[in-house]
């Protein structure tokens, strides 16, 4: 368990905070301070909407250390509404109900339980969209 590393990534993991390139407008996740599209410095934070769709997925039966308590779990590539393709777990869904192209939304969940004594690591996962009208409602 690396406390400083998890602490540094909190904004990214809790809220899906990335960056936007002020020069070309590309939305960047995770934050990398240089725009992968136009190579300009990009340091303006942007909280992503959390909406996206399943690009591809698999089921993990043999998890890496630290994830044992959640296995088997579904790992997916999510195409975010703003463009970036990210890796994340799916939650609140069974593997036989997942389809490529399925609309999903970000939720904050336990990613590592920390055992009885360690810190709990929270972060983004995705689940099937719960409430369709929230999608359609304009942001005020």
């Amino acid at each position, binding site marked *: 368990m690396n406390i400083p590393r998890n602490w540094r990534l*909190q*904004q990214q993991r*809790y*809220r899906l905070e990335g960056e936007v390139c002020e020069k070309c407008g590309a939305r960047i996740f995770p934050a990398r301070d240089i725009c992968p599209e136009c190579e300009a410095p990009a340091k303006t934070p942007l*909280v992503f909407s959390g909406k996206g769709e399943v690009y591809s997925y698999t089921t993990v039966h043999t998890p890496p250390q630290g994830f*044992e*308590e*959640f296995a088997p779990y579904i790992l997916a590539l999510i195409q975010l509404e703003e463009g970036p393709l990210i890796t994340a777990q799916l*939650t*609140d869904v069974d593997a036989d109900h997942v389809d490529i192209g399925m609309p999903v939304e970000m*939720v*904050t*969940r*336990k*990613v590592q339980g920390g055992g009885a004594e360690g810190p*709990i690591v*929270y972060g983004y*996962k995705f689940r099937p969209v*719960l*409430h369709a*009208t*929230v999608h359609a*409602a304009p*942001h*005020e």
Partner: protein
Amino acid sequence: MSDTTTILRPEHPVGIVGYGAYVPRYRLPAREVSRVWTGGYGGTPIKEKSVPGPDEDVVTMSIEAARNALARAALPDPALIRAVWVGSESHPYAVKPTSTIVAEAIGATPHTQAADWEFACKAGTEALQAAIGFIGSGMARYALAIGMDTAQARPGDALEYTAGAGGAAYLLGPAEESLAVFEGSFSYVTDTPDFWRRAYQHYPSHGGRFTGQPAYFKHITAAARGLMDALGTSPADYTYVVLHQPNAKFPKSAAKKLGFTPEQVKDGLLVNEIGNVYAGSSLIGLAAVLDEARPGDRLLLVSYGSGAGSDAFSLRVTEAIVERQGRAPLTREYVARRVEIDYATYVRFTGKLRK
């Protein structure tokens, strides 16, 4: 009227600007508990209870409820929230606040108060009461009060049928921005040893039948009557009443004793489908009622926490409710999102069984 029976009312009027519920998707039917522990004999106090998934706890559930409350409020900037208070008896850490994690996730940090509240099942309304004072005194414009639990029960105990998971978040602010305005509140607290959990114990203990008359009924009715007497209201003035719901029987019979009709009770009664969600119990009932409420409706909310005490609140719904109801998932949408599990899956999900 003497000062000791005067209702609690802030300097500046305060209301609910946004609210949001959360219930996990898993359900354990009461007949499963009965199958394992009584051979299927005996009645069950409810139909089924909600169970948190393996990656859920009071932190993650509070974050989702808080996001729903913020979506309804359409607050321009979450940094305006000057307090994030989470009431629960299942905080994931013994030492380290739930509330700082929730505050960080919703973007309320760093210029905010954050604290975890404890008072058995009324920790959530305790936070609500404090938030009214915090805003009503002018110290803050917005404050977030959450009641959320993943309730624990000893395997085979009567509580195992009902100890559920869920709750609701309330963003409080000035009355003029609110979807429902607090008309007043009133609390009734005594030292009553009906239910407790000692330090380092996994499961609570209780006084069996002692949890009824001298505990739940006495405090709920005293707080409700005290508030209505002071406000000069009667049960007929309210469209809805929401009481703490440890099982299906208690709230119905307390409401009847107070003079309310089953019609006034039914929309806020979720216990049969999600169980007793402890600090979230009365607050999620209120969320279900706000999903249905119309401008002008009056609501009575009364919590109960073992140990023991009740907080009663009278609310008047405003025009703002109409456009805000649909901005986030409705409470009944969470209740309807239902995946039934068996007792074995339940003991794995709730950590009663580990590899």
